[in-house]
């Protein structure tokens, strides 16, 4: 994107980016990174347990700035490492068996266990990890100068194979990049998990255990290193303007509409989107594309497929390609391929998780039995089975830039007095019987209360995907409905049936059963629940809470720190007033102006976040903060549980503070002028306050994991 052109700014679309939406932020971002790194070095011993520091440094690489190949590689390496533990469990058996293993792994890839969503990063660091990182660090300079680095020069045969493969991969990538018009592939880093290399590395790395044998195949041109600084903040440019068609397409404002339907990969506008998502079959048939018409993108999907299956045929798996400031992330789920192409600079693990959620959404609609279609007919066209679901996917993708649940893997509750929440829970509990698997009372994606049958547990990601499915399907709003759904974390193979009814425009009751005949029973249950909630005025309490909105930092009880005095009741209209207040605070007394926070309670798998209030009210500011949280969270999340750590980042936009303990995780944004010591004081105070208010802010009494 031409940074100086404000007309490129757009609400509600990915066209804005942290880096580019804000002229000048480029420099800030570099500075930001450096400050942070310096901090890391300064605070090294206290903020990072020493055995972790290497991993942590890698994490830095995964954050917003990448002015060198090193960082990218290290980042990629770490990511690959995390993945390896899951995807390549038995590499010592050599390439052949190994391919089979991978395949069977593919088959059983998504049967709803948690390892999958958690696979990249929560594992204890093992010697293999460290080794891999060390090795990579060592060879990074080489990476920057040579075309290929197959890591292990002492095995010519392996290298040969790899180089052959790389050449082909590179060729397809060149074709691919000219299709999607990202920078030439010679200047990209390709990261492939390689079976051959794993085998090779075996003998040379005596300390590497089975988890540590990642493959790192890097194709880097010297040009990349030098051009990187220049290119990394540019948007996709159309090289051949002769290709441009469909110039004057209709843009619909609503994200809920399938956007940019008339585009295809030759449209300039299509190429300019900051973040593309694709789902395709292993035979290369398009299944879903965020932008443009899947039909017209058939050629593009085929190119993606060619790249992925070529690498796969070698028994390897392509994870991601980095080209300039574009990241192409691949995820294989059995016969379904998911790809994102983005220039949003989000950490790789975040992008992978987004693909994972996208796949979860697909399963929620069709279950994993969709894979059977491909067994019978590899060329099966899945799109007809997804008719009318564009909104579900586009709303999910939209939530990747506003809903914290998308990266926290936790749910949040509607703030409600403890007694009201208990009453709501009692109403749900009252109807529990053998027909009922789960009962949820939701306000949009916020949980009011939920119950589950004995031993049945509801995963936060299932709540997230279900609430997205329900809230993005308009037809549920007016009438009572009964719809088959699949909760992928609960059981990705079977359909359940959801009775769905809005009790008022903001309150949705979802009753889930295994029994396809239970509709009338559940309808009766709903009538009882509704009656009870009316009589006890809980429904009114809930509506009031919805109307009041979430927590506002201005309303937190104050102390001697300057960010607020007494709780003020504020309405939506007050923004002007509060902007002034905040500015005053920032300029005058402002030492610790807290702007926003997220508190995640680890054992409840729930989080609470304050509303975005001034000066974070513009969509750009919200998205900027969201993305900053995302990468901060990704970077603290590599740590083993139990480690305490605190991180402090500062840039021109805000000061970010992350604090991770075994009980909770806390993220906060402060005025950029805030002082570190007072911010920490405020954090302590807010955390204490959240714990004091725990009964109103969280749903206690039934963590979804331990009924």
């Amino acid at each position, binding site marked *: 994107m031409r940074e100086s052109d404000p007309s490129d700014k757009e609400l509600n679309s990915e066209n804005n980016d942290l880096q580019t939406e804000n002229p000048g932020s480029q420099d800030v971002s570099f500075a930001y990174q450096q400050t942070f790194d310096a901090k890391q070095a300064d605070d090294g011993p206290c903020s990072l347990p020493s055995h972790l520091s290497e991993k942590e440094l890698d994490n830095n690489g995964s954050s917003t700035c990448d002015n060198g190949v090193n960082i990218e590689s290290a980042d990629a390496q770490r990511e690959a490492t995390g993945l390896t533990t899951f995807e390549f469990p038995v590499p010592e058996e050599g390439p052949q068996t190994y391919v089979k293993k991978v395949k069977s792994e593919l088959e059983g890839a998504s049967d709803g266990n948690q390892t999958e969503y958690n696979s990249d990063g929560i594992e204890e660091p093992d010697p293999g990890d460290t080794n891999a990182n060390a090795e990579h660090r060592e060879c990074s300079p080489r990476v920057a100068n040579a075309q290929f680095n197959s890591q292990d020069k002492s095995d010519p045969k392996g290298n040969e194979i790899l180089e052959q493969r790389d050449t082909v991969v590179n060729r397809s990538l060149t074709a691919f990049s000219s299709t999607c018009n990202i920078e030439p592939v010679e200047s990209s880093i390709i990261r492939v998990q390689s079976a051959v290399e794993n085998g090779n590395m075996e003998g040379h790395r005596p300390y590497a255990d089975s988890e540590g044998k990642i493959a790192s195949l890097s194709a880097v041109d010297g040009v990349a290193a030098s051009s990187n600084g220049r290119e990394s903040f540019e948007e996709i440019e159309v090289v051949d303007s002769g290709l441009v068609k469909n110039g004057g397409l209709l843009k619909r404002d609503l994200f809920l509409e399938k956007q940019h339907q008339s585009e295809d990969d030759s449209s300039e506008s299509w190429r300019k989107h900051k973040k593309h998502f694709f789902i395709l079959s292993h035979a290369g048939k398009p299944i879903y594309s965020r932008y443009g018409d899947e039909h017209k993108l058939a050629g593009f999907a085929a190119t993606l497929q060619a790249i992925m299956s070529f690498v796969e045929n070698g028994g390897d798996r392509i994870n991601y390609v980095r080209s300039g400031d574009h990241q192409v992330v691949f995820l294989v789920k059995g016969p379904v391929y998911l790809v994102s192409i983005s220039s949003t600079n989000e950490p790789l693990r975040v992008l992978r998780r987004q693909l994972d959620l996208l796949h979860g959404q697909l399963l929620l609609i069709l279950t994993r039995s969709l894979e059977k279609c491909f067994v019978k007919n590899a060329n099966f066209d899945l799109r*007809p089975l997804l008719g009318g679901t564009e909104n579900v996917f586009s709303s999910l993708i939209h939530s990747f830039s506003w809903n914290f649940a998308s990266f926290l893997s936790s749910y949040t509750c509607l703030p409600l007095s403890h007694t009201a929440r208990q009453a709501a829970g009692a109403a749900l509990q009252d109807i529990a019987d053998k027909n009922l698997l789960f009962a949820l009372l939701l306000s949009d994606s916020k949980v009011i209360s939920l119950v589950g049958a004995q031993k049945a547990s509801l995963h936060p990601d299932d709540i997230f995907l279900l609430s997205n499915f329900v809230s993005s399907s308009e037809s549920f709003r007016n009438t009572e409905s009964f719809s088959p759904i699949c909760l992928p974390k609960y059981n990705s193979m079977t359909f359940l049936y959801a009775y769905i009814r809005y009790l008022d425009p903001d309150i949705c009751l979802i009753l889930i059963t295994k029994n396809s005949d239970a509709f009338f*029973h559940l*309808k009766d249950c709903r009538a009882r629940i509704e009656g009870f909630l009316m009589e006890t005025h809980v429904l009114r309490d809930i509506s009031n809470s919805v109307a009041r909105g979430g927590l506002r930092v201005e309303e937190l009880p104050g102390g001697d720190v300057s960010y607020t005095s007494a709780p003020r009741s504020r309405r939506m209209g007050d923004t002007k007033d509060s902007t002034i207040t905040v500015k005053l605070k920032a300029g005058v007394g402002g030492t610790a102006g807290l702007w926003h926070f997220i508190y995640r309670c680890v054992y409840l798998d729930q989080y609470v976040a304050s509303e975005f209030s001034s000066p974070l009210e513009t969509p750009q500011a919200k998205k900027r903060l969201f993305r900053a949280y995302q990468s901060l969270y990704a970077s603290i999340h590599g740590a083993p549980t139990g480690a305490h750590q605190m991180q402090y980042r500062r840039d021109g936009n805000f000061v970010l503070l992350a604090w991770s303990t075994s009980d909770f995780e806390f993220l906060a944004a402060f005025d950029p002028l805030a002082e570190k010591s007072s911010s920490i004081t405020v954090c302590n105070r807010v955390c204490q306050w959240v714990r004091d208010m725990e009964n109103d802010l969280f749903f206690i009494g039934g963590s979804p994991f331990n009924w």
Partner: protein
Amino acid sequence: MGCSTSSPAKSNGSFDERGASDSKTMRIKLVLLGDSGVGKSCIVLRFVRGQFDPSSKVTVGASFLSQTIALQDSTTVKFEIWDTAGQERYASLAPLYYRGAGAAVVVYDITSPESFQKAQYWVKELQKFGSPDIVMALVGNKSDLHASRKVTVEEAQEYADSNGMFFIETSAKTADNINQLFEEIGKRLPRPATTQKS
């Protein structure tokens, strides 16, 4: 309570507001089938709420609505309506909704021959698997769009006749023939005194 089932007779307590003691009241399960976008939901919403929402959203699973009407002969009919989703992935669920149905409304869009094909598919399925005495209606919707008509009245009428259904063209948009559709179904229902109770 109990584990089952969709027996309409015990579904929802409050149906007898209209049930004056001298009039006969019938409760009938009615299912709408047809391709996505032909206007099933619009027909139902027009019938039940008297509204038409041109931005009507694709149905997910199935929606349940009910409406009670009085017929000329002072019979009261309570329709318990399953408005099913026309999307392909829900086709296999249709038996869930037409099982035990006393009436089926098979809808197509008069501007879409494909939807007329799809309607014939549903008619066949109902003949095979529906209740034997089910009252079937073939409905050509969007009659207001006669300028772009692709399915003639004659061919639809002929198809309906040869399959023992009654045929009507409606417009959910203008409300044309909507009430007539349901009244006609009510008239054709087997009377409870002479046949089964629920």
